[in-house]
């Protein structure tokens, strides 16, 4: 293993070690100190991550640095060939970026947690749970980092389940409260539904691609498509359904995506995330905003090469639905954490949608910027909740800016970032301005420039592509792009060099065939996210204004409010992270990672507007000046933040009265009710799934009652009547009374006889068993001998 891989492993193991220490000695280490033990562990991880990141950024030849090292965990002999399941560390741009992001965010959150948990009652039955909290957090950190460095989808699944477990433990941290333990259960069970699909996908991968290694699987997939063998030649009948070839491959992709659907809380499995806010706020920040829920997006990014066009379209649809409904629900929430939870769902929807439309780097870029600003906002809300003595209702807050200025303004930075504040035309903006709008830009291309870019595909001959690419840097209008690159590169690396180094696969005939299968994104799937881009600033501004601005609405809450340094220091770090992540390193690094992580034909052809290097096409879409996020969308979404935030300011600047009046409007009232009821998903699930199960069980048991038990009873009754008639007849005609007695006696006699061996003594049973064995053996011997 090289230095970097070793360091990544050290970073993974350090929190595990702290987990062990806390698990065994946590109760002795005591209340504040055990928190610092956990911080120490995660700080080691952060150190490793920083070192690796620095090395990665300063390296000129990243392809040489990329590595997958490890060993065979177990070698299976299946289907006549050897299939190693490998435990390997994957080192590439995506891993490095995600690893750094996760460790940085979690270091901040760990430190914050010490301050947060200090003020919380953490005793159940006289047992202090403080160390247990950090114990779980360390375990989570280990699993999450393990998930990031796994090169095998099998180990990815293992860590996937581990983070799910930690999520369960931490949501239900206050397990003595009924709602918390219910929420934990709900999260766990909902995730199981998704993981079931994930497992099915895994099985398909295993059976048809014959490997768990991500790179190998992608290679096999591509090759099987090229030769139309393996999964593409498969032919399966399930319950009258005929599935073959491409359909099965699509199912595999959708199966894998189901895992992401559960973990990233995508429609229709999104119901668990808002409930998961029952956990302590740092947990919501770390697990349910920044890292674990983003693991779903990460998974899609990793298996992107195994997705067929149909599967991608499915993913885009799911993402689109999620981001729309959850953003709408967020408008009416009054619990500060619930607003953030729904906005998280909505942003996750954007990421998944981005993955679906092929905006691979943009979606991951959004993941990273979102992780910073959303973690910051969650911690801010934690600060507010802690400061206000566990009041979460925004209607009772207001005017808190004087009491907690740092929280207020860092939260505002988060609002600006999620709203996508930026000035179109200048390279100034924050968070979503770059990342979310880029997703939208790709969606725009897929919707409106479809014929231009994808239709004429097969006529082109590759030279056009090169010309286009070589022309791009010379173009004067390309200032934005190059400006971004310069800002981002920092270390002075040249992206073009990376493009060149990774070139290859020009004029791939496979690509041409598949690009034709790519879906054109329907118009509604482009316009819904655009509309939501207006809604997002509105509800975030509403949340911020209701909490921090205006006049205090509850004297008691206002009076209690305070900040503590242990808690606002991480906020400042994360605010800085929000600024930096918007500009520096992440986006170009991710673009570069895309070069290596998405070379498969089906994926690349998503963006395959021109034939040529698969890699270049993908990057071309993201970096081409003509497709700068705001070049095409400037009129549509460039000032969405201004409109949304302005509207919120207009409505809420004088307290809640205006909002209340609007709510009373006849039609609005109905919509408000629907949204307050979370669009009835919980009700539907409760009625249809839970109720349905109960109904089926009731029907089955009723049927058993009616037909079997009643039937037997009736039969017995009727039989008894018959016997009575019969014996009555005998008595009448023959007068043979004794016969009945004889029957009764003989019955009793047989009963006695049968009862005799049932002594209840185990020794006798052994004797009978042995006798039986002797008889059987004798019979066998007799048969064989004769």
């Amino acid at each position, binding site marked *: 293993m090289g230095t970097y891989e070793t360091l990544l492993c050290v970073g993974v193991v350090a929190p595990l070690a702290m987990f062990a220490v806390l698990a065994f000695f946590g109760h002795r280490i005591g209340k504040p100190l055990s928190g610092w033990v956990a911080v120490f562990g995660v700080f080691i991880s952060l150190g490793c991550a920083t070192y690796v990141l620095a090395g990665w950024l300063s390296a000129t030849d990243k392809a040489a640095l990329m590595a997958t090292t490890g060993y065979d965990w177990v070698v299976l002999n299946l289907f006549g060939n050897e299939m190693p399941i490998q435990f390997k560390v994957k080192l590439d741009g995506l891993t490095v970026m995600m690893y750094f992001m996760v460790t940085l965010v979690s270091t901040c959150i760990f430190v914050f947690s010490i301050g947060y948990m200090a003020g919380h009652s953490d005793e159940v039955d006289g047992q202090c749970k403080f160390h247990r909290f950090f114990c779980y957090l360390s375990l989570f950190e280990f699993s999450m980092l393990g998930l990031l460095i796994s090169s095998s989808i099998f180990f990815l699944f293992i860590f996937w389940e581990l983070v799910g477990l930690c999520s369960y433990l931490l949501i239900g941290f206050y397990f003595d409260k009924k709602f918390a333990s219910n929420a934990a259960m709900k999260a766990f069970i909902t995730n199981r539904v998704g993981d079931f699909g994930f497992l099915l996908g895994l099985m398909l991968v295993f059976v048809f691609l014959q490997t768990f290694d991500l790179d190998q699987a992608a290679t096999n997939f591509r090759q099987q498509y090229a030769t139309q063998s393996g999964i593409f030649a498969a032919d399966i009948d399930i319950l009258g359904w005929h599935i073959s070839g491409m359909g099965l491959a699509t199912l595999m992709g959708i199966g894998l995506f189901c895992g992401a659907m559960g973990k990233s809380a995508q429609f229709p499995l999104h119901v668990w995330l808002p409930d998961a806010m029952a956990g302590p706020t740092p947990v919501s920040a770390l697990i349910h905003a920044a890292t674990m829920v983003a693991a779903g997006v990460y998974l899609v990014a990793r298996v992107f090469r195994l997705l067929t066009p149909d599967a991608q379209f499915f993913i885009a649809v799911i993402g689109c639905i999620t981001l729309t409904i959850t953003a709408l629900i967020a408008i009416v929430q009054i619990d500060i954490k619930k607003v953030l939870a729904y906005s998280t769902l909505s942003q996750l929807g954007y990421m998944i949608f981005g993955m679906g439309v092929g905006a691979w780097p943009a979606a991951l870029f959004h993941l990273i910027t979102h992780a910073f600003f959303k973690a910051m906002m969650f911690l801010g809300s934690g600060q507010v909740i802690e400061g206000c003595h566990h009041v979460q209702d925004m209607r009772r807050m207001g005017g808190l800016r004087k009491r907690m200025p740092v929280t207020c303004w860092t939260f505002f930075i988060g609002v600006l970032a999620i709203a996508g504040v930026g000035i179109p035309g200048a390279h100034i903006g924050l968070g979503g301005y770059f990342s979310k709008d880029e997703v939208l830009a790709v969606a725009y291309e897929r919707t409106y420039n479809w014929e231009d870019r994808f239709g004429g595909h097969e006529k082109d001959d590759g030279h056009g592509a090169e010309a286009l690419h070589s022309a791009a840097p010379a173009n004067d209008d390309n200032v934005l792009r190059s400006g971004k690159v310069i800002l981002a590169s920092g270390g002075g690396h040249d992206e073009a060099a990376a493009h060149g180094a990774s070139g290859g696969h020009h004029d791939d005939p496979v690509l041409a065939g598949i690009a034709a299968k790519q879906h054109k994104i329907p118009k509604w799937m482009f316009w819904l996210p655009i509309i939501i881009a207006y809604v997002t600033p509105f509800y975030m501004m509403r949340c911020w204004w209701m909490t921090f601005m205006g006049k205090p609405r509850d004297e008691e809450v206002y009076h209690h409010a305070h900040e503590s340094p242990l808690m606002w220091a991480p906020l400042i770090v994360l605010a800085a992270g929000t600024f930096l992540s918007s500009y520096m390193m992440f986006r170009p690094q991710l673009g570069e990672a895309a070069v290596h992580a998405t070379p498969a034909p089906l994926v690349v052809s998503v963006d395959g507007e021109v034939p040529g290097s698969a890699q270049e096409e993908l990057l071309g879409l993201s970096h081409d000046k003509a497709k700068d996020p705001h070049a095409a969308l400037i009129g549509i979404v460039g000032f969405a933040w201004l409109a949304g935030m302005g509207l919120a300011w207009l409505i809420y600047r004088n307290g809640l009265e205006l909002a209340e009046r609007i709510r009373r409007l006849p039609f609005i009232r109905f919509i408000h009710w629907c949204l307050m009821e979370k669009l009835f998903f919980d009700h539907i699930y409760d009625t249809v799934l839970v109720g349905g199960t109960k109904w089926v069980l009731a029907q089955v048991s009723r049927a058993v009652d009616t037909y079997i038990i009643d039937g037997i009873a009736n039969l017995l009754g009727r039989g008894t009547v018959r016997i009575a008639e019969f014996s009555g007849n005998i008595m009448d005609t023959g007068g043979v009374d004794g016969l009945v007695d004889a029957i009764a006696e003989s019955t009793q006699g047989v009963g006695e006889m049968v009862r005799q061996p*049932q002594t209840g003594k185990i020794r006798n049973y052994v004797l009978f068993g042995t006798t039986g064995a002797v008889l059987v053996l004798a019979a066998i011997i007799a048969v064989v001998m004769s």
Partner: protein
Amino acid sequence: MFEIGLTHYLVVATLLFVMGIFVMITKRNAIGILIGVEMVLNGANINLVAFNRYNGMSNIDGQITSLFVIVLAAAEAALAVAICMNFYKNLNTVDVDHGDTLAG
């Protein structure tokens, strides 16, 4: 006579097995029954190892299986002793003939 082969071991195993069954039948002490079970398992184990030795193939499948049997026997003994103690706690004796509450 002096050439020891598979059959010799099988004979010993058979006799041990049958004696184990005899012990199970005739001992009223719960621990005694357990001893009988151990004898039966040992008899079976001798079979496994002997077949492994004389099957003409150079693998150790039989031995590994017998290893599993030993582990299972140890686990079973632990559980059985626990059951005996419970039995004793409830009935104040280890005479299994008293454990016939469910007799028909």
